């Protein structure tokens, strides 16, 4: 534990004890400002005491790796844009919005090119939606891997997105009857390319230019990205530059060599797009300093790419008994959903776990069930129940 955390832990602990006994701690009242503080500012910053940050996967090239959201620090269901997870295959390009255009062509009656201003004139749509990389929790396939919840589950984030319905833009071009797929290409150095089933593209897929009340962050695809709700993150192509309607998928490297799921028999599943029901306890969780004995809430996040979270159960005995946690609104489809359960840590070692059920009836599987069905070399789409062991000294571990 850092010394700063330890001090806080000690002062909170002794303050709590003194408070319960009704004894004055002699603590001084918090200092109130006696002189004017900083002036108004054009673009705000968080308090200088707040240090939460993304964790970067160590890699040879930081242009093709990932950064993970600090889920244990997240409050509410919206991830601050600056802390939204990243996965790029060719770095973050610098795209001047005035020079941006989106080309729509292929099996359409009218191939058209749209400027950003053109796209912003279509009827606006707002949607709160989570994204999750299908590689989230990949280390856990081989057994407990990540040292904390950021490293086990941080490749998911949730934002309020602003944009337009892709269906409106496609209608403008006149989609031909033979079209089955939409091939989306990014303007980054990797020219990342993914095929979206046309039915999904026309259903609820968006072209988004806004995130959490302002323009997309560069890391999130500025100035325009696809948002394919509930599907693995990489299909929501960032820095979108081209959409081609086609009668077949493109079978890009990102949907053959990668983002396919190898099974024990040597075959692989392709176009495994929907993200399954999943949850994790964010508090208590490893690396946050030892647990204080006594009352606390077990808190966490649950989500599903297939719809709303309808139930989260929590176990304090490694999955032998389960209790329903309380869900905190808003509970939205394909969104992070908060849950909590009141609990007392009595100093006895225990194993905490959470289990999510979504509105399709899917229940988050045990690790044993997942591995029995898919082996350990699938890499993508790991959504098993996560266990945290709490030791008598209050330390918490990934098991």
């Amino acid at each position, binding site marked *: 534990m850092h010394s700063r955390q330890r001090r806080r832990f000690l002062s909170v602990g002794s303050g709590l004890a003194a408070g319960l006994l009704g004894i004055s701690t002699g603590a001084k009242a918090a200092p109130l400002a006696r002189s004017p503080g900083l002036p108004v500012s054009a673009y705000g910053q968080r308090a200088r005491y707040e240090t939460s940050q993304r964790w970067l996967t160590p890699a*040879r090239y930081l242009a093709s790796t990932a950064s993970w959201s600090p889920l244990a620090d997240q409050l509410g269901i919206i991830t601050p844009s600056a802390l939204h997870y990243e996965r790029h295959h060719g770095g973050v390009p610098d795209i001047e919005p005035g020079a941006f255009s989106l080309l729509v062509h292929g099996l359409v009656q009218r191939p058209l090119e*749209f400027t950003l201003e053109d796209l912003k004139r279509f009827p606006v749509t707002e949607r709160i939606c989570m994204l999750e990389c299908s590689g989230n929790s990949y280390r856990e396939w081989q057994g407990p891997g990540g040292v904390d919840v950021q490293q086990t589950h941080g490749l998911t984030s949730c934002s309020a997105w602003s944009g337009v319905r892709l269906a409106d833009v496609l209608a403008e071009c006149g989609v031909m009857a033979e079209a089955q797929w939409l091939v989306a290409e990014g303007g980054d150095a990797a020219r990342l390319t993914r095929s979206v089933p046309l039915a999904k593209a026309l259903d609820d897929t968006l072209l988004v230019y806004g995130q959490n009340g302002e323009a997309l962050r560069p890391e999130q695809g500025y100035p325009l990205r696809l948002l394919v709700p509930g599907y693995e993150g990489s299909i929501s192509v960032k820095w979108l530059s081209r959409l*081609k309607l086609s009668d077949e998928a493109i079978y890009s490297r990102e949907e053959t060599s990668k983002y396919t799921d190898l099974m024990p028999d040597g075959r692989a599943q392709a176009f495994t797009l929907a993200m399954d029901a999943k949850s994790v306890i964010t508090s208590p969780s490893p690396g946050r300093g030892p647990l204080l004995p006594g009352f606390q809430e077990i808190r966490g996040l649950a989500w599903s790419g297939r719809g709303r979270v309808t139930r989260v159960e929590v176990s304090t005995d490694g999955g032998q008994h389960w209790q329903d946690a309380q869900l905190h609104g808003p509970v939205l489809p394909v969104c992070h959903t908060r849950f909590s359960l009141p609990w007392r840590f009595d100093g006895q070692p225990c194993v905490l776990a959470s289990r999510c059920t979504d509105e399709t009836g899917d229940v988050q599987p045990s690790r044993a069930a997942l591995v029995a*069905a898919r082996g350990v*070399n699938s890499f993508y789409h790991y959504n098993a129940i996560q266990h945290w062991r709490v030791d008598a000294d209050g330390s918490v571990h990934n098991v």
Partner: protein
Amino acid sequence: MSRHAWLLAMLLVACAARAEGYGLGHAVDAARLRAADTAIGPRGVELPPGSGSVAAGAELYGRQCAACHGAHGTEGPDPVLVGGQGTLASAHPVQTIGSYWPYATTLFDYIRRAMPFTAPGSLNDDEVYALTAFLLAANGVVPQDTVLDAARLATLRMPNRDGFIPDSRPRH
């Protein structure tokens, strides 16, 4: 032009441009469409003219790729490109172009769009054909004397072509 005639002309332009909808977006000429149509599907219809030999590819590979992918494409440090056939059902599968990729067109497409990693887009189409030929030969997919072009590439059958099935994840 009289005001009336001008309005009529504008109306005709608008009707020609769009039968219905919002009237947004700009027409694109054929040359621009051809130039943009660079993503190569499995039928290979988008493949450009040009050709390249395994020998030319070996030379290019040594200069532009080996430092990251290894002299034989097996040593890394960056992704292994060669070998791994017969390992997919083992405890330690090696997923490469030769052992895993279902379509040869994907290789041409990916090299042209994304490699070399630090200078994507710097290779001309003959060079991409040559590198594709070299990596396919190294994986035993084509003979060493191959000269690859659009017609040949589009008809190649990859060893793991039938290794993929649709999403069949069990719903728990």
